[in-house]
């Protein structure tokens, strides 16, 4: 799975491939089940988890409702602290802004902290096209970059790789990008970490420009926050002369105090730690310390359109903890790549079709990439009702309806390929609204029951490829009831 997500096949096809890959399924099962159990323990330690979850939900909802106001406040605070704020309506604009900022420094290399937003806009590709090399410094991102791969998890982008695969990637690719891996590299974690450390150290010491995202932006103070586990992010944030942060507008929180909630819920939900090892906070620029120049690129890229949808907007509460991925039985089998986006798993299934619209095959298939089991909603630290949004987006796919695209109200047409299903749903609704018709159908099924196969041709094959159909009983319940009035008339 290299290259770009554009032109991804619909989810079912991509998932079918993944299901057939035993290494991938093994890697994912092991990783998700381990973190799942740890998370449950870390969350169980807090007596006030339910209150924290509710507080997080409310803070985010309140901020989103008044986002225009808080963004203006944020811009004022950042500017007052010596930073410069840029507004980017979409990916192309954000990439143009960042490319120009890097060019203005005269540099042709940048180091990067792991950032979902820059993945979303494919910044590395845009920089490469402008002759600028971007080095990922997060260990898992480094593995993905060296492997010419795509991230498949929010928190652990290389979750789909095992140690052996990582050793091979380091051994073959590191030399291309800088300091090569040692000749005798083994697949022990300590060896792999040391190879990465030496490789990255050279980059940190040389880089003049750093690029980051942020987990939170505090409107009140203009402070940006990155939480991470390795400390590589802190190097990127403090060593370069110029720091450029690309952040989705929904990452705003009103006040410093609001961080109290999220700095508890985020680490416990994501890495199952009580507190994440590194929390970096920066406010504009400071004399004699850290970057001389700080630029904040505020990214919209479909977010205000999402905000306009009263049901779907709750997806913007997401703090990218990845807990929903780790409990999702579909993610566990399909893997992150099948979602065709930097946002995989349950959150990806509701975020991508909102940020990008439901026009493409993959985006129209994502709302169906769920059995609606509800495990994601249960673990989400900001209580996003993912099943509710999935069903809402299914409605958009099959029935069309009003939506906002690029700030304009539009009336979406139903997606192609659902005509037969729609007709069947209407017919079923008609039959169910007419009990007599339902009964006639049941009787017909019962009378012809000996003719029913246990496997099906046509679209039904999807069911009977792996499962046998139940046998049709000789008499539907309602006929028995009418004959016996619930057994009162004798026959049971």
């Amino acid at each position: 799975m290299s290259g770009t997500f554009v032109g991804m096949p619909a989810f079912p096809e991509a998932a079918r491939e993944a299901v057939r890959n035993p290494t991938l399924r093994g890697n994912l099962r092991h990783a998700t089940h381990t973190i799942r159990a740890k998370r449950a323990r870390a969350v169980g330690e807090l007596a006030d988890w339910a209150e924290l979850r509710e507080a997080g939900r409310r803070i985010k909802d309140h901020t989103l409702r008044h986002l225009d106001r808080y963004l203006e406040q944020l811009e004022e605070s950042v500017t007052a602290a010596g930073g410069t704020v840029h507004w980017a309506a979409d990916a192309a604009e954000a990439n143009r802004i960042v490319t120009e900022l890097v060019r203005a420094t005269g540099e042709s290399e940048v180091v990067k902290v792991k950032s979902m937003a820059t993945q979303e806009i494919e910044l590395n590709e845009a920089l490469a096209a402008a002759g600028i090399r971007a080095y990922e410094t997060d260990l898992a991102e480094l593995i993905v970059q060296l492997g010419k791969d795509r991230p498949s998890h929010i928190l652990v982008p290389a979750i789909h790789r095992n140690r052996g695969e990582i050793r091979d990637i380091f051994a073959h690719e590191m030399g291309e990008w800088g300091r090569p891996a040692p000749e005798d590299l083994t697949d022990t974690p300590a060896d792999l970490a040391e190879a990465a450390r030496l490789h990255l150290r050279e980059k940190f010491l040389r880089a003049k420009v750093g690029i980051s995202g942020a987990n939170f932006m505090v409107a009140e103070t203009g402070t940006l926050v990155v939480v991470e586990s390795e400390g590589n992010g802190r190097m990127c944030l403090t060593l370069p002369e110029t720091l450029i942060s690309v952040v989705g507008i929904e990452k705003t929180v009103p006040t410093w105090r609001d961080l109290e909630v999220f700095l508890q819920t985020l680490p416990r939900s994501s890495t199952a730690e009580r507190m994440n090892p590194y929390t970096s906070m920066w406010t504009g620029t400071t004399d004699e310390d850290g970057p001389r120049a700080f630029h904040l690129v505020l990214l919209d890229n479909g977010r205000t359109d999402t905000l306009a949808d009263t049901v779907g907007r709750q997806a913007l509460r997401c703090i990218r903890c990845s807990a929903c991925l780790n409990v999702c039985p579909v993610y566990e089998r399909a893997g992150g790549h099948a979602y065709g986006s930097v946002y995989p798993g349950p959150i990806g299934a509701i975020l991508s079709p909102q940020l990008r619209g439901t026009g493409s095959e993959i985006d129209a298939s994502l709302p169906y990439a769920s059995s609606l089991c509800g495990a994601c909603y249960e673990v989400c630290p900001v209580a996003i009702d993912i099943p509710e949004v999935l069903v809402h987006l299914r409605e958009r796919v099959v029935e069309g309806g009003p939506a906002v695209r690029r700030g304009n109200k539009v009336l979406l047409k139903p997606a192609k390929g659902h005509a037969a299903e729609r007709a069947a749903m209407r017919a079923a609704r008609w039959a169910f609204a007419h009990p007599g018709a339902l009964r006639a159908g049941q009787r017909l099924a019962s009378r012809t029951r000996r003719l029913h196969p246990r496997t099906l041709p046509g679209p039904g094959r999807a069911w009977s490829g792996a499962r046998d159909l139940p046998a049709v009983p000789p008499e539907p319940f309602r006929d028995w009831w009418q004959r016996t009035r619930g057994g009162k008339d004798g026959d049971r």
Partner: protein
Amino acid sequence: MRVALFLTCVNDTLYPDTGRAVVKLLTRLGVDVDFPMDQTCCGQAHYNTGYRHEAEPLAWHFSDVFRDYEAIVTPSGSCGAMVRELYPRLGERARAEGRGDGLARALAPVVPKTYELTEFLVDVLGVTDVGAYYPHRVTYHPTCHGLRGLGLGDRPRRLLEAVKGLELAELPGAAECCGFGGTFAVKNAAVSAAMGVDKVRDAESTGAEVLCAADNSCLMHIGGTMSRLGSGMRPVHLAEILASTEEEPAL
């Protein structure tokens, strides 16, 4: 107490034995059960597949059929969750779309009176020992909509533990979805089947003869998988176990 059995379209058509078991069980417990003949389907498949507007007439129909009963009992966590969780949402959405609060008002009386079978037994009738006898080793799968949608908690377990002769075996990964998910089973057949196989393997590891759940749709998927895998286990609806007695034992 005049109680209506909302059997659901799937049970009515494919699993009449479950319906007969509920009638037998409730009658034994002194409840007067009626089966309103005009009942059809709650509309969950429509709603969950994205056809909310097709589900609305079915919700109206449901309220017409069941309005006058003191309680509505259903042996399906999934359809119970449709009525209790999602009907209010249907009403709200219709109102938000400027179509008045007619639907919300029609649904308001039936929603709180609708109980999944185990809720009705434990919360309304206040019994956990229903006098059942079922001499088999059984493992219990709490289906997603019962577990997380309705929050059935340990009610089904308590009922099972009180069954004479029954040996309850712990199901590993019990809270994990079996992979049915309505139209998901067809739209994402490969993932659904993989989930089903894992569920069956987990169930087999318990050494139980029977996998019990309170939702025949999930049991159809799990049972279909067992049959295809040639597993020795059988799927059985909880109601059939609770209805089984020493005089009239179920298989």
